């Protein structure tokens, strides 16, 4: 239960971090942010990075800002920063509702939003948020910066579009219209545990009808994603039990549920049906 030896690098700026990462990436170099996922994996020796680029002393990465259209979240913004709404917009309330479901309080004080996305655990709450809200991710390397759409970013279990020398420096989430409603539901066996399924429903309520519907499911497939079949059921309809159940059924049918030694695909599909319906009920 002790991590393998590594060399630690402590850059003070993003440029310096990217330069170091570029130099050590090929020799099992990894970025260390909050460490709440990486360090346990290192303790089990499932990961044995030879170099860690510790970004905790890069002040510029701790910033969060909004320009009236987008919330920009820097690579060192911790989960706990979202305990209270960070912006006077439905997005702030959505993030606060989801943040409470992430692991436990001490973990939330250290773990970071961007780190969770870069780690890309299928059940991660922030990955579900990024996929559902069509987040834009900004990756930096010595070759420059590039933006990646959330739908292209998640490529499977703990697999992302990031190249090994790229650092996820920022995530951009769109601010939501004032008439936005949302609901979030997660199923896990113990408080703070990994989601066996989770759903996030976000839509605008205009003239009593649901429009601009985003319905995301996490924890069920190798990556979280929006479920267009369920969104189509909801779009243009008034919120209500019948349509919520129909959308939940559509989502359950649409997912290719993962199987593991504790959870059959059928059971996980049932969970998807339940979490989607509960998320929608909470939104109404």
């Amino acid at each position: 239960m002790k991590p393998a030896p590594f060399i630690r690098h402590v850059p003070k700026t993003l440029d310096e971090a990217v330069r170091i990462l570029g130099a050590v990436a090929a020799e099992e170099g990894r970025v260390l942010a909050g460490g709440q996922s990486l360090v346990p994996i290192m303790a089990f020796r499932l990961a044995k990075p030879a170099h860690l680029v510790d970004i905790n002393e890069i002040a510029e990465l701790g910033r969060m800002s909004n320009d009236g259209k987008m919330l920009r979240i820097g690579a060192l913004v911790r989960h706990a920063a979202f305990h209270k709404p960070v912006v006077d917009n439905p997005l702030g309330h959505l993030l606060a509702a989801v943040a409470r479901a992430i692991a436990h309080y001490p973990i939330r004080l250290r773990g970071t939003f961007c780190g969770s996305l870069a780690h890309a655990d299928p059940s991660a709450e922030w990955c579900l948020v990024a996929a559902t809200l069509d987040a834009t991710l900004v990756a930096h390397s010595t070759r420059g910066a590039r933006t990646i759409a959330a739908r292209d970013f998640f490529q499977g279990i703990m697999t992302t579009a990031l190249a090994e020398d790229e650092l996820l420096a920022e995530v951009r989430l769109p601010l939501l219209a004032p008439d936005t409603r949302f609901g979030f539901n997660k199923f896990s066996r113990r408080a703070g545990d990994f989601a066996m399924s989770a759903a996030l429903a976000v839509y605008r309520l205009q003239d009593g009808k649901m429009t601009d519907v985003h319905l995301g499911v996490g924890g069920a497939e190798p990556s979280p994603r929006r479920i267009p079949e369920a969104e189509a059921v909801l779009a243009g309809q008034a919120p209500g039990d019948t349509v919520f159940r129909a959308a939940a059924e559509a989502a359950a049918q649409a997912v290719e549920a993962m199987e593991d030694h504790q959870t059959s695909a059928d059971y996980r599909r049932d969970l998807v049906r339940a979490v989607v319906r509960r998320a929608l009920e909470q939104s109404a």
Partner: protein
Amino acid sequence: MSEKTAITLHINGRDYAIAVEPRRTLADAIREDCGQTGTHLGCEHGACGACTVLVDGEPVRACLMFAVQADGKSIRTVEGLADGDTLHPLQQAFMEHHGLQCGFCTPGFLMLAVGVLEREPDISDDDLLDVLSSNLCRCTGYQNIVKAVRAAAQQMRGNRPAR
């Protein structure tokens, strides 16, 4: 072996100048290099919370932080809670409400609760329950820990100097 780095850990107001490999966890450094064995190690992968200490006032899992990352930071462990023979209100409450049996998880629960109550003195009962779900106890069934922390929270609020 990788090279050792010289660092200083400020634990409970005392400086410990030590040399550690980067891979040395804060928990191991506190126990092995600084000799402060009140902090316990259970799972060593962030699941149990037994090793919870305060770093710059924040409760963190000391097994998920490297000692080199705590260089120069202010660390508080269970050894720093009592004032001489006078127990901290939380320690007293754990005793009075039977919040421990074997005691292995107790230092972690105490530091978790102290950290949270100092940061958020007016935390609601529901939120407190959520916070206490962070750590594992295999003896008590948790009810007496919850009772103890709620009682101490009330007492600490009562002791707050008037603004």
